[in-house]
């Protein structure tokens, strides 16, 4: 009972298949109240399907687990207390901005949304577009309008599918600030992203789904701890410097000025440093845990080709 109050979303052993394709496989997940939960994973791996199931747009396979949102088990009605920003923008092009927002707010059961609409448009710098048709908006503007439609009615849970994709840094900052403020007010936020840096910086919890299976779930710290301190960031000045030839280096991520080396287990970092010093002038040497980006790639890369085919067959559903 106590647990139910703390978790806004509880997914228990849920499976969702489309024909032969298993989009989500025996997924169990709990999203605590007031947290920001990041969903990551390659395209077509089941993120959007999971989000749509939480939104009750899709229903899990019959007999396979249950989803409880805000303590409710309902399988028919979408909850008015959940806001949703879909991956692709869904706005009526021929309607005025304020009309679309009013329509969406009324569908969420809000009877007098006009003052809220004005204040949100003002905050997003869109007040002058209030009476313009949606079709004249730029991509970033319509993204912000869509965001407003998701959070306008002050839902307890906000689900954002790729909220920051395709935004310029200024607008991305505006949205990020808005998301953080939602959390400060106690709203629980679930968002999916391909931007690992954003996930690392913003999320209290990170969940990674790969080919329909949960592969990561927890705080960034707990996830990184699983991989240990096997990563070294170095900057070495020297001709023909190639870290891949150094014994004990399993993998190199070359960022240009900086290189990230992954050590094989049982490699001594001091040995590595002395090896590096033999090859050039070491300007930077940092023993660190793997980045989320690196962890993501470690999980998803080995079967990049297979992923491509999942992406194609899953595109119709994801």
């Amino acid at each position: 009972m106590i647990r139910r109050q703390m978790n806004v979303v509880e997914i228990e052993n849920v499976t969702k298949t489309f024909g032969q394709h298993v989009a989500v496989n025996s997924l169990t997940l709990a999203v605590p109240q007031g947290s920001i939960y990041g969903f990551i994973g390659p395209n077509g791996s089941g993120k959007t399907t999971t989000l749509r199931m939480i939104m009750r747009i899709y229903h899990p396979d019959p007999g396979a687990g249950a989803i409880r949102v805000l303590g409710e088990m309902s399988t028919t009605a979408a909850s008015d207390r959940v806001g949703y920003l879909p991956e692709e923008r869904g706005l009526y092009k021929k309607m005025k901005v304020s009309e679309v927002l009013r329509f969406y707010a009324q569908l969420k059961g809000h009877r007098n949304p006009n003052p809220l609409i004005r204040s949100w448009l003002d905050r997003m710098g869109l007040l002058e577009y209030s009476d313009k048709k949606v079709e004249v908006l730029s991509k970033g503007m319509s993204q912000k309008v869509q965001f407003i439609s998701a959070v306008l009615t002050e839902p307890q849970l906000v689900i954002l599918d790729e909220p920051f994709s395709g935004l310029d840094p200024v607008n991305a900052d505006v949205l990020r600030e808005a998301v953080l403020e939602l959390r400060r007010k106690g709203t629980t936020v679930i968002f999916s992203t391909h931007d690992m840096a954003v996930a690392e910086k913003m999320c209290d919890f990170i969940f990674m789904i790969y080919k329909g299976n949960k592969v990561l779930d927890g705080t960034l710290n707990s996830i990184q701890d699983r991989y240990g301190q096997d990563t070294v960031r170095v900057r070495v000045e020297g001709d023909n410097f190639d870290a891949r030839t150094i014994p004990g280096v399993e993998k190199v991520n070359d960022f240009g000025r900086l290189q990230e080396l992954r050590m094989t287990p049982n490699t001594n970092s001091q040995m590595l440093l002395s090896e590096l010093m033999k090859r050039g002038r070491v300007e930077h040497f940092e023993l660190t845990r793997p980045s989320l980006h690196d962890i993501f790639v470690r999980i998803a890369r080995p079967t990049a080709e297979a992923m491509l085919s999942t992406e194609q067959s899953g595109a119709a559903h994801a």
Partner: protein
Amino acid sequence: MRKTMIVAVREYLVSVKTKAFVIGLLMMPLMMGGSILVGALMEGRVDTKDKRIAVVDSTGRLFEGLDAAARQRNDSAIFQGEGAARKQTLPRFVLEKVDTGTTDMQRLSLQLSDRIRKGELMAFVLIGPDVIDAGKAPGQSTLDYYSNTPTYNDARQWLTGVLNEQIQQLRLEGAAFDPKVVRQLTQRLPVGNLGLTEMDASGNIIRAVETNQAANFLVPFAMMFLMFMVIMATTTPLLNSTLEEKTQRIAEVLLASIPPFELMVGKLIGIVGVSLTMATVYLTGAYAALNRAGYAQFFPWQSIWWFLGFLCLAVLMYGSIFIAIGAAVSDMKEAQSMMTPVMLMVVSPMFVLQYVIREPASTLSLMMSLFPPATPMLMIIRQTIPPGIPVWQPILGAVLVILMSLVCVFAAGRIFRVGILMQGKGAKISEMFRWALRG
């Protein structure tokens, strides 16, 4: 239900605010006003230039009378109005006698044709030598009209009438009959077209009224055509709006707030409202026009509620089918091919229209009007043709249409739910049936 109504109100407002809807509403009065205006403008602008017609009279006995008739027509029949307002509205026919002389007919015909090409003549008539001889079969005696303006029929018609009258007169005289007496004896009588004699409340017998053939045919036809037009104008845009919601991913936002079935029903209710609005505007306009012209008694009050009821059912039936198609396909091109069979169903009453109007009470007409896709339109036709039909027939028809509409709405609801979130290629018809059956 509240959310369904919110969807309905949006669908309604968006539809009635479109330019197409406003133009469609204005179309009828515009067209009516326009034809009156054009008629008024054209009236004063008839080409009243003299029409010159050459006559080659091989009998030598017809031209005099023909010319006299032309002069009489030119003096009186081509004017309208009295006194100062008297105005020529038709062209004068000026006849010119051409002697056959020694030229043979073929050459003469060529010469006269050339004069028409030069613009000296409008037409010429060749009257064969034997036309007065009653013993000849009609094919053997020639009476030919030549011109290069085949669509201008007035002169030919006038000539036909006057020449035949004169030939008849000459034939009768030749046979020693008095043409006057013969005319009197052979005069035709019109047959009156009456309704039925009735008895009023106080027992007086009311004489049957003359029926109006035009009204008897036009009213049912107009009612059916209005229904057809409103169905087409309001239901086909549902396909577009559903397709927009699907391709623009609006559906996903909507479905996050409202279950698919309620969403679809909301759209249908909105469109029923649009069609009722449209029908009301048109019917009001039609009544106003009839009333003004003094024909208010022809307005079909007795079947107006049936009309509106059947219209709503037809819109639900066809609207749900169009929504299902919009949800199942991925673009307009795919939609077109699926629309063809539905369109055939909508226009099917048109194919049997003539038969149903002629024999509204026949068993075949009854059977056809109980076929749900055709019921709304055919039932209305049969109801508005006197004496109407027994009331159980439209009731049975309505029950069948309601059942059909329910089947369509539920099947469409299932197709809608599956199709609306599918991206990529559109569904085949077989797939749509599978979704409809399995849910």
